[in-house]
């Protein structure tokens, strides 16, 4: 079946739990300079947006997951969350 619908995709990539996140830690250490002392658990990651033409939402999710797993995230150190919605 030919792709018939446009979907908007968001992929969020974060370091896996247990992998040191020096960017997040550095950001967290900078926050007291703003007078904020209650902020903890800062994680730094990446966010990607793109559009996919697909037959349906399941097809769009399957394609977006390939993009996330094979390119956007390195599964050795990162994990990704894929969100798909009709454009």
């Amino acid at each position, binding site marked *: 079946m030919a792709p018939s619908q446009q979907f908007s995709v968001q992929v969020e990539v974060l370091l896996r739990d247990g992998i*040191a996140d020096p960017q997040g830690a550095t950001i967290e250490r900078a926050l007291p300079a703003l007078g904020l002392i209650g902020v903890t658990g800062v994680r730094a990651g990446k966010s990607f947006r793109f559009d996919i033409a697909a037959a349906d939402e399941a097809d769009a999710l399957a394609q977006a997951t390939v993009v996330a797993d094979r*390119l956007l995230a*390195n599964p*050795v150190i990162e994990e990704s969350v894929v969100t798909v919605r009709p454009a």
Partner: protein
Amino acid sequence: MAPRIGVVLFPGTNCEHDAVHAVERLGGDAELVWHGATSLGAYDGLILPGGFAHGDYLRPGAIARFSPVMEAVAGYAAAGGPVVGICNGFQVLTEAGLLPGALQKNRGLRFLCTTVTIRVESGRTALTDGVEVGTELSIPINHFEGNYTCDADTLAELRAEDRVVLRYVDNPNGSVDDIAGVCNAGRNVVGLMPHPERAVDALLGSLDGTVLLGALLRSAGATTPAA
């Protein structure tokens, strides 16, 4: 005949001429191979040199892994040909799945450009063949993402199979188990963050890189996989 080494050039690679110079200084022949090549010449060994392949966009090595030449590199490695990835080349080999683990940002988020002491931990790889275990070498590093990381199972496997090739004597970047270089199960693919090609001239501070690259040329002379 002098071993013939292919030096793979991605857009953004910047250590290729150092690698060629080092190979030639040690009596080998070297030739640049553009990343768009879909087949390799009759090389006795390959070097993936340092730099910023494809601008290091997304992650170091993440895009380079999809360069056309990588399929040929994987085939060459599978046939047993010696393949050495230096710095960015190491990152490319991990992203391509030819070596285990990943290189993440240095502990402390510092770009490191200095000379470190590394210790040879295995003398049975394409880059250390015949080098005595425990040999300490003074070699430059120059990286932001050289913090070697892998899961506990992979680390246990690397240790059990004597595949930790090089360790830092004084860990500069947070690498797990002080790892500076690892090899694949076949021992013919080796990746390391330090730059042996920058330590082949006493005038530039160290000759210790010749120990490793000399071993590569020996390995290359001993193995010629079918092209």
